[in-house]
């Protein structure tokens, strides 16, 4: 079961890399880059506050516990 779980994470990670590559190979295509996708919700203040909290919390969770 451990192997299946890890393979799942790897596959999902590869999908993320594949999406970024697809976006960069065809800049005018239908897939935006990750940077574009993350910047778009930043147009809203509520999302900005949420994104800051989420990233800060990830740091605290991993490096402090």
């Amino acid at each position, binding site marked *: 079961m451990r192997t299946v779980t890890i393979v799942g994470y790897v596959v999902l990670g590869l999908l993320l890399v594949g999406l970024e590559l697809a976006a960069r190979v065809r800049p005018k295509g239908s897939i935006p880059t990750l*940077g*574009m996708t993350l910047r*778009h919700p*930043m147009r*809203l203040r509520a999302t900005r*506050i949420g994104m800051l909290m989420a990233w800060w919390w990830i740091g605290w969770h991993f*490096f402090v516990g």
Partner: protein
Amino acid sequence: MPAGPALPVIVAAGLVQVVRQNAMDVAVFFGTALLIVVDAQLPHTSRSRRIPTGFGWVVLAALLGAVLGLAGLGSPVTRIVLAMAGVVGLVVTLRGPADRTVAPLPPGWRAWASVAVAVAVWELLAWLSQDQPDLGNPDHPTLSTLADPVLASTLGRSLLCAAWAAGMVWLLRGLATGGDPNTGSGSGGGSGPTVPRPDPPLPG
């Protein structure tokens, strides 16, 4: 009510922290939800803050990662550095511009959202398999459980800390400008041009 899905998502994540019985995380998530509600009631300027950019930020992220990596997990230095990063981020965010109107993303953004949801579901399934909320299941590990051996080494910890710090630096630039890549000198890409608001009708 604030626009967008941020508030319900954070409240839902906060409820997960209630199940985890982690008092600090509950306070962080519900405190953030309260901040979003209060912030939505306040007036805000539409002016973006200009953020200095360039190679200095790369050096800053590397230094931050090195300090965090060398300081050790949970050390006082790590706590202080992370707390300071949070305070700086909060100040930058709260001084940022009001809600902006921008052109919609290409439809392919749904592919990103789908993979992100799949990661969240996979992580949630792994977490639900744990006998105790804060005790990892090696047969069905969460990302935290998988990261533990990496974080145990100075090199691995420094690299992960540097990656986190680089993400925080990138985020700060977006928070200051409302995600506008044309303010400062954002590194390519963007959420599309700002859609100009229509001029008010002339009197008479």
